[in-house]
Structures are given as structure tokens and as C-alpha cells.
């Protein structure tokens, strides 16, 4: 790549330093705010008609209404998140239900190894079951002590902090369990199938 002109006085974004340095994955910058990224219009959801389902390779499909989701054991999560567009935000605070709790209500077919998260608006992302269990993922309905705003994925989004944030599907409506991994919206179009920020798995072939 040719020499790029450097703009006098432009310093770009802060990288990590000091105590937080080893919490920021390679190639990432620290974000002060919470950037809103979206591939489409923000859906508006009527909570009376909202539901979250786990289907596919399960013995019986399970569905929760908004009221039913609220009754499930919930807890607070404080996690670092990293977006493939290079910003990382430390100590984000959420409240929601662990995916482990949701999976307790279903009996998985022994062939189930992967899940496709599907959302209002048509977005999908694929995950391996081992990345969803053991307290590694949750569905969140509160951010920073308040109901999750629509532009950040409310009423409910998936949060999988150990992978790039495109895997944390906004406006999630369910998990579809499968035997083979089916690339989702970005995975089928240039992005890495798994997306581990610590290995900089940004693009397919990385």
C-alpha cells in the first residue's frame, strides 16, 4: 500500500494504556460512547406480540412471551465488548437471562451443535453451542440500569462478549438449533465464521 498523507494534528482514537491495556484485544481502540451500528432500520416491536423461541433440533420448540421472559431468573452482567469496526468498550453493564437458563427448558437433539440467532428485521448470525453455554452468553433487556433502547437492540438482544459484537444479535427473537453451521448475515459476506477478537478473526480466511 502506498504512503498515506498524515494529517497534521489528527490523533485518531485512543488505544488502551496502563491498567486496561491487556483488556483490549489487538487492533482495537477504546470507545468513550456506545456507538450504534446497524445494517437496517430499527424495528419497533409490540411487546404484547413479542416472543423468544428456541426451535430447530430440539425435542419440542419452546417459546417465551415478554412477561414469561421477565419471570425467568435474571442477573446483572458486567462485560467488555469489542466490535469488528475496532472499538472496544470496557465494563458495560447489562441485565438479562443467561442462555444456559433458556437452554434448561429445552431438550437438545444430540445432533445439535450450532445455533442461528434470528432477529426482527431479518438479521441472522451463527454461533457454536460451546460459545453459547457456561455463562458465556445471555439475552439482555436492560443496559446501564435502564430498559434497553431500540437503537441498541431493545427490547431484547443477545450478548456474547467473548466474540466480536456482530454476534450479539440486536432485536433477537430466537435461536434456531442446527447440525451444520449456517453462516449468518455478515459471516456469509466476508466476515469470519467465529469472530474471536483475541485472535483477530475479523474476516473470512483470517
Amino acid at each position, binding site marked *: 500500500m502506498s504512503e498515506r*498523507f498524515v494529517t497534521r*494534528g489528527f490523533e*485518531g482514537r485512543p488505544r488502551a494504556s496502563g491498567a486496561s491495556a491487556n483488556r483490549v484485544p489487538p487492533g482495537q481502540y477504546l470507545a468513550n460512547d456506545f456507538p450504534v451500528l446497524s445494517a437496517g432500520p430499527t424495528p419497533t416491536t409490540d411487546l404484547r406480540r413479542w416472543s423468544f423461541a428456541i426451535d430447530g433440533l430440539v425435542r419440542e420448540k419452546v417459546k417465551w412471551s415478554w412477561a414469561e421472559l421477565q419471570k425467568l431468573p435474571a442477573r446483572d452482567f458486567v462485560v467488555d465488548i469489542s466490535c469488528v469496526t475496532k472499538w472496544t468498550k470496557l465494563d458495560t453493564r447489562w441485565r438479562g437471562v443467561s442462555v444456559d437458563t433458556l437452554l434448561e427448558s429445552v431438550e437438545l437433539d444430540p445432533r445439535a451443535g450450532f445455533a442461528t440467532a434470528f432477529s426482527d428485521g431479518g438479521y441472522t448470525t451463527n454461533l457454536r453451542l460451546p460459545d453459547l453455554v457456561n455463562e458465556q452468553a445471555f439475552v439482555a433487556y436492560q443496559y446501564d440500569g435502564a430498559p434497553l433502547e431500540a437503537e441498541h437492540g431493545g427490547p431484547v438482544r443477545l450478548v456474547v462478549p467473548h466474540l466480536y459484537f456482530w454476534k450479539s444479535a440486536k432485536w433477537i427473537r430466537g435461536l434456531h438449533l442446527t447440525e451444520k453451521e449456517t453462516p449468518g448475515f455478515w459471516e456469509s459476506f466476508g466476515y469470519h465464521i467465529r469472530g474471536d477478537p483475541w485472535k483477530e478473526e475479523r474476516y473470512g480466511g483470517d
Partner: protein
Amino acid sequence: MLDWQLATIKAIRQETSRVRSFTLALPDWTSHRPGQHYDLRLTAADGYSVQRSYSIASGPEREGEIEITVERVADGEISPFLHDVAVVGDRIEVRGPIGGYFVWQAALGGPLLLIAGGSGIVPLMAMIRHRAVASPRPATRLLYSSRTPDDIIYADELRKLASRSDGLEVIHTLTRSQPAGWTGYTRRIDDKMLAEVRRPLGDAPLVFICGPTPLVEGAANGLVRIGVPPQRIRTERFGPSGK
């Protein structure tokens, strides 16, 4: 070919408390069409690079240079740099002119209805400035929505141009506060306002709407509701309103 070139900041003018205009001298200047924009690119020493589009505020009659008008957005990547760091003499990478849809030149005729919200006035100002020195000069009405009188960009110049009685009228709506004795509009653009403003321009003016997304979509939908043919309406969205 759309290539990057190094522009030099020739002059800086403060328009309002949050808005600044920059005159950029271009080594490879080409005549633009009012409504077009340039892309600007900043690169830090570590290679971090960011790029944004800025509408050209000046008409093509100013050779060798363009003016861009930039609102300082608090969490922006480029505008805080332009406002807080850049000085006359600095060089910035630009490429352009870009765009073929949201453009107007005198040869396209009129009558013209221009609708602006906030910094959406910028590309429309290029059209107005070009119109002032071009011919023919169609009947033109600018409906410009701002929060307060201090937020009106190009206020003096618009006043002067409108006072020439050459068919340009400027109608402001001030949605948050107005000066003493104000008799103009004091609300967000709605269908009634659109109908009143466009009445003298006839059934099918050429319309250009630019500003925050909600204003642009609201005005476009409203104009269609009051009977303006959709194919006469052109829109450019600038994203959410500044806070």
C-alpha cells in the same frame, strides 16, 4: 477518475457558535454542480483513518476553490478536528466533486422549492449562490427550519439575497425560540406549512429537501400528501439531528 488531492485551507469563517465554513484551495479543482459534495479524509500517524462527506456550500463560479460548511458534532470524528485543531494553511485530503442525483443548475429551470433543516442548508446554499449569478433565475422559495435565530447559518447573506427582489424568498421557521416581535412560523414543518409555502410556486415545483432524516422524510411525505408529484422531489438525509 475520482482521485484524492491535497486541499489547503485558505480561510476559516465562524458562521454560528457550532458551525464553521472553510475555504479550500484545490490544486485539481473542477467545476461542480450545486448539491454535490467532497469526501474528506483524515489520517493519523498510526494509520487510523476516517472519511466523511461534506456538501459544497459555494457555487461553481468560484474557480480553484470550494467552501464547505461544517457543524461541530460532539462525538464526531472529523468535525471536532476541523473546529478545534485545523488552521489556515493546513492541508487535508479531499476527493470529488461527487453526486449526480441531488443537484440543481439553472438550466434545469424551476420553480424551485428548497427545504432545509439545520446544516441541511449547505447544499441548498450552493444552489442559491449559483442561482444568484446565473440565468434564467426561476422563482425560488427556501423554507429553512432552525431551533433559534442564532442557529441560522448564512443569515445575513440570505437576507441580502432575498432583498434583491429577483424571485428568491426565504421563509424561516424557528422551532425553539424566536426574536421579539417574530411573526413567522414557530413550529416543525407540517403539511399545512408546506401547502402555504409552496402555493405561489404552482403544482409541480422542483423540490430539494436536506437535513436530519426525520425532517427530510416528514417533508417529503407531506409534499406527496398535498399533491406534489413524487418524481419532482429530491432528498438528501444527513442522519440524526445534532444534540
